[in-house]
């Protein structure tokens, strides 16, 4: 490394851009959240009233709890179901089962598809009238399996989660897969010589090496879960789908901030309060997870 003032010239442009567009807005969000403001004209200081409305107003409180509940449910599914699947997929590819290169490519592929197209695919598959799935069930003579999918409040949420999972599952998988390459060969070979079964070898020898990547995938998936927007918006619309089953915090935020055309009012102050709540939650969850994992693993 060099001691020279030249670094100032290298860093300044990036510093200005990054601060102005990434960090300063975070601070401003907190500031705006204390005001009643439509985005134009006078700003009315109302203290914590926006937050009171989010948590305790009867109508808003219900919408908020429903949306946040969906974020948390998605997060739970991502952590408890998707991550084990990601680990399993990564492990199979790591073991070089037949066609592993093809599998790695194809499992990752949906990640590069834009959310609009994912939304389009979701419509194609799950449309109640012309969708592939219902058509398939009818062709196979299984009319009892025909379903309204996104139109059925009991399962709409899970169908959506499936779609989002299909889209993003490859990222976590490749992160874990990259970590598997760091497992020292000699340890694994020793366990094979000792006669450990595949399952024992995975559970006792290899899994412990994967802690760093699993921790990261848990944190990343949780942040992803708490900032869900694109696919629910495209598939379920701005109002959060049937009975609000596809509503998420970010959708609620968007509705009250930019949704003036639909609701006849913009409430930027209120919207700012929602985003402050959501990044506080993200911060808490991420810190909590790091803390828990550090405790668990650094015995």
């Amino acid at each position, binding site marked *: *490394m*060099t*001691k020279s003032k*030249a*670094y100032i*010239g*290298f*860093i300044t*442009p*990036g510093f200005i*851009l*990054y601060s*102005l*567009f*990434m*960090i*300063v*807005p*975070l601070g*401003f*969000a907190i*500031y*705006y959240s204390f005001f009643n403001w439509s985005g134009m004209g006078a700003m009315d200081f109302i203290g914590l009233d926006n937050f009171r409305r989010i948590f305790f107003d009867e109508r808003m409180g219900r919408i908020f709890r429903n949306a946040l509940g969906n974020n948390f449910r998605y997060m739970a599914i991502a952590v408890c179901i998707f991550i084990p699947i990601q680990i399993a*997929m990564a492990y199979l590819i790591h073991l*070089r*089962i*037949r*066609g592993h290169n093809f*599998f790695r*490519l*194809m*499992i*990752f*592929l949906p990640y*590069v*598809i*834009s959310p*609009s*197209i994912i*939304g*389009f695919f979701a419509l194609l*598959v799950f449309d109640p009238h*012309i969708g*592939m799935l219902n058509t398939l069930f009818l062709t196979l003579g299984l009319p009892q399996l025909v379903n309204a999918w996104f139109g059925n409040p009991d399962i709409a949420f899970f169908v959506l989660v499936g779609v989002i999972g299909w889209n993003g599952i490859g*990222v976590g998988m490749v*992160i874990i*897969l*990259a970590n598997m390459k760091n497992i020292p060969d000699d340890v*694994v*070979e020793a366990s094979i010589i000792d006669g450990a079964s595949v399952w024992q070898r995975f559970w006792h020898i290899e899994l412990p090496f994967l802690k760093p990547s699993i921790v*990261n*995938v848990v944190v990343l998936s949780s*942040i992803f879960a708490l900032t869900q*927007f*694109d696919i629910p918006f*495209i598939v379920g619309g701005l109002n959060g789908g049937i009975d609000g089953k596809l509503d998420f915090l970010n959708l609620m*935020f968007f509705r009250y901030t930019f949704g003036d055309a639909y609701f006849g009012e913009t409430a930027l102050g209120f919207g700012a309060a929602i*985003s402050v709540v959501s990044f506080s939650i*993200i911060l808490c969850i*991420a810190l909590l997870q790091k803390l828990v994992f550090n405790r668990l693993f650094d015995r």
Partner: protein
Amino acid sequence: MHRRRQGIGGWIATVLLTLYCLIALVLIGNMILSSVKTKQDLLFNTFGLPHQISLENFRQILVKDALFRNFLNSIILTMCSILSLVFVSSMTAYGLARYRFKGRNALEFYFLLGLMFPIQIAILPLFIIMRTLSLTNTFLGMVLLYTANMSFSLFIFNQFFKELPSALHESAIIDGAGEFAIYWRIMMPISKPVLFTVMTVSFVQIWNDFYLPLVFLTKRSLHTLTLAIYQYLANFLAYWNFVFAAATLALIPVIVVFLVFSDQIISGLAAGSIKE
């Protein structure tokens, strides 16, 4: 070290994974086939092979619906953003990685905060800042935003520059090269592998981005391809033959980039998130 022999469990896994991968193949294959069907063919022969290959859908959306404009918008926006992002983030990373100064570690941490907070979180004040600067509905504004969202690429460059031997820098100084010349003429050329990683990953992310264009590009003439497809979807049933063509058009560049650079994209994304 790995067993080549597959037990029954291995076969079950292979079959399950194959079925899973079929989903993507069927969806993408069906999309491409449907995009060259006539509307009649699509209506009565929805999931079959096309009876004849017709480029009418493409002609219609590109010429009549001006989707060509959206396609160009996506290309221009993505290219400019990638160039700007790569230039600014590599320069910043270089300044952070190759110089010793007070507060360097704190600054590095500051720049990586963006990995934790996606740009959407503070979109509202961002919108107000952009509006104040008259940057909404401009490509310049979008390019600046994508450049500012630099934590990931900065991290990748930073890792790379840190590992270069310092002798490289010293010998360049002895040769009389200026600081910027060292970065531009020596460091950038040898950083080609990471350069490709950052470019391809950013390509996928910016080309597909939905949220920022949705918020900041409300003028129809500025819509990107992703937004245009979303507009078509709103009238899905009336125009679904067009949606297939538009989606094919949007997906093909990304799939090509992905198939050619899959190793860079996959290893780049993995490297960007293992940072304990």
